């Protein structure tokens, strides 16, 4: 099926995004390889989420090119972007589950909209996806308001994976989870990426998940990618913001013990 598969899952070149007079993303270029987990770090309010939302077409850009799986992305209303929608799954920061639908209906929603399947088959798929993210089939009948934070994220991930996308975008997947749940979630993402061959684009602040699951880490500062590479390369980066980020008080656990 993979006819001349492009080497890069996401190609962003020379992207400029701004609101009013403020420029948030300033001539940014970023390539995400197929099958890797890329972590994006940056200051709070520094444009990480803006970058992700621009790639998926939610925020209009001023200039630049975005390609996802070889297809150019326009605005979210464009037909080409909507066609691309089947190829990605998105996990929003707060889950963004449809509150009027049950968990099962939430997972089935992308299937119902895009494919013609029998109810029995859709129930089977929903159960399979629930199991995939480590939830019980009984949880399928709950409403989003009855779920805990960790479960919401798992259901949101199950919905993102409903159409078996090639790319998953995760917006702070472990924020608000306790360390055990966050660790489980990291392991889950790693397993899914290995078994399904997913490309994962992950916006995160969680140093532990950057360290354990990400193949490469990109640092966003002043609207540009200032450093990109495996974690150990970033730890040696000379850029002042990157140094401050990875060598601050909270980051000491990443450093080899100097004893």
């Amino acid at each position, binding site marked *: 099926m993979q006819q001349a598969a492009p080497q890069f899952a996401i190609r962003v070149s020379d992207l400029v995004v701004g609101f009013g007079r403020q420029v948030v993303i300033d001539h940014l270029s970023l390539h995400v390889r197929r099958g890797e987990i890329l972590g994006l770090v940056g200051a709070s309010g520094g444009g990480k989420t803006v970058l992700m*939302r621009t790639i*998926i*077409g*939610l925020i209009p850009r001023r200039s630049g090119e975005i390609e996802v799986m070889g297809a150019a992305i326009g605005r*979210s*209303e464009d037909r080409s*972007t*909507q*066609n*691309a*929608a*089947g190829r*990605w799954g*998105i996990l*929003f*920061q*707060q*889950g*963004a*589950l*449809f*509150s009027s639908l049950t968990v099962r209906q939430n997972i089935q*929603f*992308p299937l119902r*909209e*895009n494919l013609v399947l029998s109810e029995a088959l859709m129930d089977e798929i929903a159960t399979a996806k629930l199991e995939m993210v480590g939830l019980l089939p009984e949880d399928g009948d709950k409403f989003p308001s009855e779920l805990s934070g960790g479960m919401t994220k798992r259901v949101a991930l199950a919905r993102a994976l409903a159409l078996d996308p090639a790319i998953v975008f995760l917006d702070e997947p472990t924020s608000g989870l306790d360390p055990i749940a966050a660790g489980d979630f990291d392991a889950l993402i790693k397993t899914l990426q290995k078994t399904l061959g997913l490309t994962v684009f992950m916006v995160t602040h969680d140093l532990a998940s950057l360290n354990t699951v990400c193949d490469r880490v990109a640092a966003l500062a002043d609207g540009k990618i200032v450093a990109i590479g495996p974690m150990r390369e970033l730890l040696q980066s000379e850029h002042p913001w990157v140094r401050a980020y990875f060598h601050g008080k909270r980051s000491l656990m990443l450093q080899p013990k100097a004893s």
Partner: protein
Amino acid sequence: MAKVNDIGRSAVGAREDVSVFLQMLGSLFLALAGVLRRPRSLRLTSLVYQLYRVGWQAIPIVVLITFLIGAIIAQQGFFHFRKFGADSYVVDMVGILVLRELGVLIVAIMVAGRSGSAYTAELGSMKMREEIDALSTMGLDPVEVLILPRIIALVCALPILSFIGSMAALYGGGLVAQIYGDMGPAIYIARLHDAVSVTSFKVGIIKAPFMALAIGIVACSEGLRVKGSAESLGKQTTTSVVKSIFLVIVLDGLFAVFFASIGM
């Protein structure tokens, strides 16, 4: 200087409001055209549910309020007309006022407060929880999925509610006529029959879908303008109700001018 500044700001704000309204109207018609081309893409479940909510569930309160309004007008009419011995003309006043203006206006204002605010709050909280973004990233048009069924439901429900409301108001008037004005039901109905024509009814009911469209568009576009905070949700809901009531009354005025000029 600050005054001038404020005037400038509100002028810019008003222009933005108009452009938001027109944008929503445009995307609504685009979505409607899409549905007309592929009738299967209409969200029937959602439409029926919204009709149930804004139509069926609104009936008791609409009937109660319009009944009271009809009764109050009739009571005031008897009280004042009696001085001139013009008791029987109260029926003319009640009939024409209710059918032409008040029935539809009162119901539209109530629907704006009841269902318009609900639309704004729902869409606003969906926007806050990124549910609307999730829809667009799944390749779906939020206007087609969420807004079109809501507005169609409103456009269908408001004429029906106006009719029910007008009937309730006439009934209220009749009841007062009997208790307060010593006018039996038979005489009331006969007077009503002479006083009002189908034209008065048509003039009233024809306004309802337009008012519903205005309420729906304002409510939905204000909902989509909600930013990430709870405060903004409250603010937009208030704005939505105030604006749609204002628009309903302006529309009513425009229709009055229009009908006067074509002699209806």
